[in-house]
């Protein structure tokens, strides 16, 4: 998994060897605000890391972003405003959950569309099925079947 990335690029990768992540001095005094900050941090990408949120990353940039998020929260921003602020500054790349818009339509739309299409296809198949049902056995066939079954029972 992560290790495979590592063996692909060896030491050249900027993956952390461990995470210091949030440090005590960064935290907000108010536990409710801090909880909001932690929650938001998990939705924000550390842009110099590989697929890590700023909550997990030890990179200096992640530290700066964590502090920034907490400053905005302390200044009274709503969650939405904090995210808008960061997107205006760093672009959509900073969001780990892309916003639903035209260019992410396929991304968000494909899973439900695929499920729906699959269900519709299955329903259509289930409806078509009865036509394919073989004709009921005739009296003669039934007699032969019974005879065959009788034979089968005699086997060791």
């Amino acid at each position, binding site marked *: *998994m992560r290790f495979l990335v*590592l063996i692909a690029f060896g*030491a050249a990768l900027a993956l952390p*060897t*461990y995470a210091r992540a949030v440090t005590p001095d960064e935290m907000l005094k108010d536990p409710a605000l801090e909880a909001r900050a932690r929650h938001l941090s998990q939705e924000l*990408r550390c842009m110099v890391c590989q697929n890590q949120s700023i909550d997990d990353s030890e990179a200096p940039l992640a530290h700066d972003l964590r502090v920034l998020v907490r400053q905005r929260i302390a200044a009274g921003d709503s969650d939405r405003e904090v995210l808008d602020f960061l997107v205006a500054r760093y672009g959509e790349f900073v969001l780990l959950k*892309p916003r639903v818009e035209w260019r992410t339509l396929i991304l968000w739309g494909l*899973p439900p569309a695929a499920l729906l299409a699959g269900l519709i296809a299955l329903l259509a198949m289930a409806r078509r099925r009865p036509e394919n049902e073989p004709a009921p056995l005739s009296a003669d066939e039934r007699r032969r079947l019974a005879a065959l079954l009788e034979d089968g029972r005699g086997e060791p």
Partner: protein
Amino acid sequence: MIPELGHYALVLALALALVQSIAPCVGAHRRDGALMQLAASTAVMQFGFVTISFAALTACYVTSDFSVATVFENSNSQMPLIYKLTSVWGNHEGSMLLWVLILSLFGALVAVFGGNLPPTLKANVLAVQSWLAAAFYLFILFTSNPFLRLPHPPFEGRDLNPILQDPGLAVHPPLLYLGYVGFSIAFSFAIAALIDGRIDAAWARWVRPWTLAAWMFLTLGIAMGSYWAYYTLGWGGFWFWDPVENASLMPWLAGTALLHSAAVMEKRNALKIWTVLLAILTFSLSLIGTFLVRSGVLTSVHAFANDPLRGVFILAILVAFIGGGLALFAWRAPLLRRGGLFAPISREGALILNNLLLTTSCLTVLVGTLYPLALEVATGAKISVGPPFFNLTFVPLFLLLMSAVPFGPLLAWKRGDLAGVTQRLTAAFALAILGAAATLAVQGAAAGLTSLGLGLALFVMTGAVVDVVERTGLFRLSPGAALSRARGLPRAAWGTAFAHVGLALTLIGIVAVESWADERIVALKPSQSVALSGYDVTFDGVTARNGPNYRERVATFTVRKGGVAVGVMTPSKRSFRAREMTTSQTALMTLGLSQLYLALGDVEGDGAVVVRLYHKPLVLLIWIGAAVMALGGALSLSDRRLRVGAPRPALRSAIAAE
């Protein structure tokens, strides 16, 4: 001399693979027994030569022959022997050699144990295996040769990346590759069937054990990787939705779907075309998984272009096998006859629903993993798709799947009785609702998702137990009779039950950790304590220690519960000499199924250390569940019906049990 020997053996394997790619196909076409027979010998010889090649490379690592470039890059004479061995596959070139070693092993196994396969099918399967093998030998020889020498051999190697010097990683890559490559057999069988234009239930009986084995290894490989990431990366996450993890999850999801649809095909001769398609798709995803990771395209689109030869080669292999496989499918699949009618409410129907949900989840992971790349290539815009996306899309699909799991094994083949099954699941429903309600009562309405997850897990687990209880007649018959029926129950039925229980255990672990994990992040000076979840953890001090190829500073913490010491935790920081890298070793204390998790942060000026302490309730269930799933696979694999060439009587007990 030894590296040249390995190099030469690989070239010989390529030559054999080229022969095996053509001769058996021609033989199968002309019904020429001798040409078809050839494939069996070449497959075994190929395995022999690749083994020699791999052994030669291993010898270079063990003897620290730094005149070989890859050994110099990835090894060090001071490393313990185990890491010298694991560094054979701890890099791109070596891991590709491991890949072909496993590929040739599977080819040889088919050659040796495929005695009762129809000769043309066996010949075609081995030929397709050889197409794959030839492509990979060429890839290794031309772009990733592990045996290249350095003109001026250095005295010391650069060392294996310290983060990879870990016992967990000794087994993770081989397990993962056994899974990835194992699916190649299903692929080869599918392609061979398409070439033949003929497929029957016996085909599924041959394909199922291979798929099952591959699935088992992949399950264990993913679990191992997840546990490694959990204790290594230092914040106690067990799954990150990292593209590299997704690359291994996709073949697992498709492979799980394949297992279930192959069961339908074997028992009821239905879903043939779909099963063949799934076999092609599953291995395609394994190939994509291997190459997403190998090519570097995941880190950035530009990394791909840095090594154009490798990148183009990879693309060519992907296009040839995935594109070729699907094209062949489109052309030949109409020849395969449909069979096995069934009503929508039946075991077949349930397994189709299983397939729909699994493939949709797989598609979700695929689109989430590749969309940022596609968007960047198409428009230049950069977006990120991370855990919050998958939590919103994948998780609901998977919960939906879980809610359907208990119904499958209880429904009858062909035409099932949903009302009857629902009634038989009353106990499972009751337990699930009780569990969910209890969670809500204790935790309040905010724990909605927790109670849903727990309820579903209980439902799946009890459902699996109900299935076994009903089949054995426990509580209904005398204990002796039930025991004898339990013995007579096909292993495959036990396998299903175990795999489903494992799934439920994993879900419980995930829900518990996501909902009830607790953490403290504090700076501690010696003899200061921090309290968490009823435990007091005291920082005793830091000592220095020397390892074979590193120095470490070990912090000692004493864990107490109610004033009584229960143990000592010793997280450390290691400085590796060769690479001048520092890693942090987390400390774990297992308490039943839960763990205390301690990671060391910075050491501050006044002798204080920053400590991240977590309590992870029931966390071990996540991986125990995966192990139980794999155990289910093993049980199923040991079923007489699946052992190729098993004697007939097995068939009768199987029928009697259903």
